[in-house]
């Protein structure tokens, strides 16, 4: 049963001719983790932003639908969309250092949504905040809630962001490269924490990353993007057994292997890039939009 269903989504810069997202379709099943993989600029973060309604103003969606639990978000009024996303979706952002407002205490940054969107009273929201911080192994929750972000370490802040994302029991969380800004030792813990929380709460997760190693550990299915186009959309097991698309195959081959750390890295061959570019171009044929 799918929770998020994106159909034929195209987006472009306002007034530009070329598309940034090209006819993207993908599905995230209820309570499952779907990976979104690609190089920088492939449009993976943009898909996450489109779902959460936080695309920059310079980007417009020109085609397609984003169905959340059967309701097309793009057909709703702005206020209705904001409420629906606020109640059912959350974001785990990339950089824990800029993802918490430096001039506000942690407490209200977690409870705001509970109070304003879900209409809880403050005491209940605060109790919930303490409880959810406990779930991400933050012992001293009362103190943390009173702290300002700069008083806490980067790893701590990332835990808080994860807790905050799960606080309102959303049905879908978009994790936008949640481990990229962290150092390697913390990455593993955070990844484990996200996986644990996801399993415990049964939340659907759209996991944006460029790290196929992470995908193999966390995700159930994945989409590989190039140039805003989905080149491969499949379950994780068949993908790692042997990707269908040559670009996906090259991308997998380019991933460093822990079993063979001395092997030289394999760049994606130029021929493969040329081919996938050709496909991207071909997809633009017959695409008209004024």
């Amino acid at each position, binding site marked *: 049963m799918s929770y998020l269903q994106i159909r034929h989504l195209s987006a472009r810069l306002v007034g530009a001719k070329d598309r940034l997202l090209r006819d993207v379709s993908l599905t995230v099943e209820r309570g499952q983790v779907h990976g979104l993989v690609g190089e920088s600029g492939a449009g993976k973060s943009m898909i996450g*932003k489109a779902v*959460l*309604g*936080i695309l920059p*103003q310079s980007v417009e969606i020109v085609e397609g639908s984003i169905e959340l639990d059967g309701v097309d978000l793009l057909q709703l009024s702005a206020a209705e969309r*904001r*409420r629906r*996303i*606020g*109640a059912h*979706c*959350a*974001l785990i*952002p*990339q*950089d824990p250092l*800029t*993802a*918490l*407002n*430096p*001039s*506000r205490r942690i407490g209200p*940054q977690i409870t*705001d*949504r509970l109070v*304003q*969107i879900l209409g809880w009273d403050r005491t209940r929201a605060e109790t919930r905040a303490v409880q959810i911080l406990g779930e991400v192994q933050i012992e001293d929750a009362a103190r943390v809630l009173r*702290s*300002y972000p*700069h*008083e*806490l*370490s980067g790893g701590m802040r990332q835990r808080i*962001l994860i807790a*905050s994302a799960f606080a309102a029991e959303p049905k879908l969380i978009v994790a936008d490269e949640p481990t990229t800004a962290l150092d390697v030792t913390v990455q593993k813990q955070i990844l484990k924490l996200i996986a644990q929380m996801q399993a415990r709460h049964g939340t659907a997760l759209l996991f944006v990353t460029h790290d196929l190693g992470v995908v193999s550990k966390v995700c159930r299915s994945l989409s590989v993007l190039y140039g805003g186009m989905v080149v491969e959309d499949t379950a994780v097991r068949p993908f790692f057994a042997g990707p269908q698309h040559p670009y996906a195959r090259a991308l997998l081959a380019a991933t460093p292997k822990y079993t063979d750390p001395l092997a030289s890295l394999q760049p994606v061959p130029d021929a493969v890039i040329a081919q996938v570019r050709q496909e991207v171009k071909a997809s633009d044929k017959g695409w008209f939009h004024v």
Partner: protein
Amino acid sequence: MAEGRGQITRRAGLRLWLAGLWLTALVLAALLAPWIAPKDPLAQDLFLGRLPPFWVAGAEPGFLLGTDSLGRDVLSRILYGARIALVVAVVAGSLTCLIGATLGLLAGFLRGWVDTVISRLIEIWMAFPPVLFSILLIAVIGPGLSSIIIAIVVIDWTRFARVVRAEAMAQGAMDYVASAQVAGRRRGSTMWVEILPNVLPTIVVLLTLEMGIAVIVEAILSFVNLSISTDDPTWGGMIAEGRSSIHHAWWVIVFPLITLFLTVLSFSQLGEGLKDRFDPVLR
């Protein structure tokens, strides 16, 4: 907080203290001028013209910093001049800040057509030469304290608007704003609750700088005789008058100049100091 990060505070430093001390003295001087000024600032006595300050030979007791060519007491005029200087600094500074910062915040956060309109307005506005603009403005609305304040606001709001806009844009691109939006916060409310507190340190620094600038602009306008009536003691007016007798009575121009200089300097130093206090990361 027991450990690390929370403990790091910057010491306010000597600069801030000296600046604060000078400005406090100035505020007291302005408030208490009628009681502490040794003479009537308007009283003329041509027999007592161009008396030197007390340590120079030929000084009269009671005229600590000497007199000008009309025999008016320089110290008393400086003390009374602080009133006008401070009123201009505070009122013009705050109004400029309010208008400029609001427009800058709207443009920088809302972007889109709001930004286009405000940005074009700023560019057009800044194409006018400011001194000429203010002289023209006062020529039209007539001299007086409120005219000066209006002139300063009209000229200088762009300073705030530009800087605050850039800062609001930078803050708007941060992940915490995206998180707040996903959590269902309205755009307007995001601007006040999430963005404004983080732009505030910048605004405070600009405000204190602007207060210094307002004092200077008032002095410039007095200098070209477009400020308040020439009888009222203003620092700029005193400097203008002192210029004509600079060769035989240097004190008439030097003391108001020093006062002006220290005041403007103090405002800017105060801004730097307050910025550290307001900055949540350095707090």
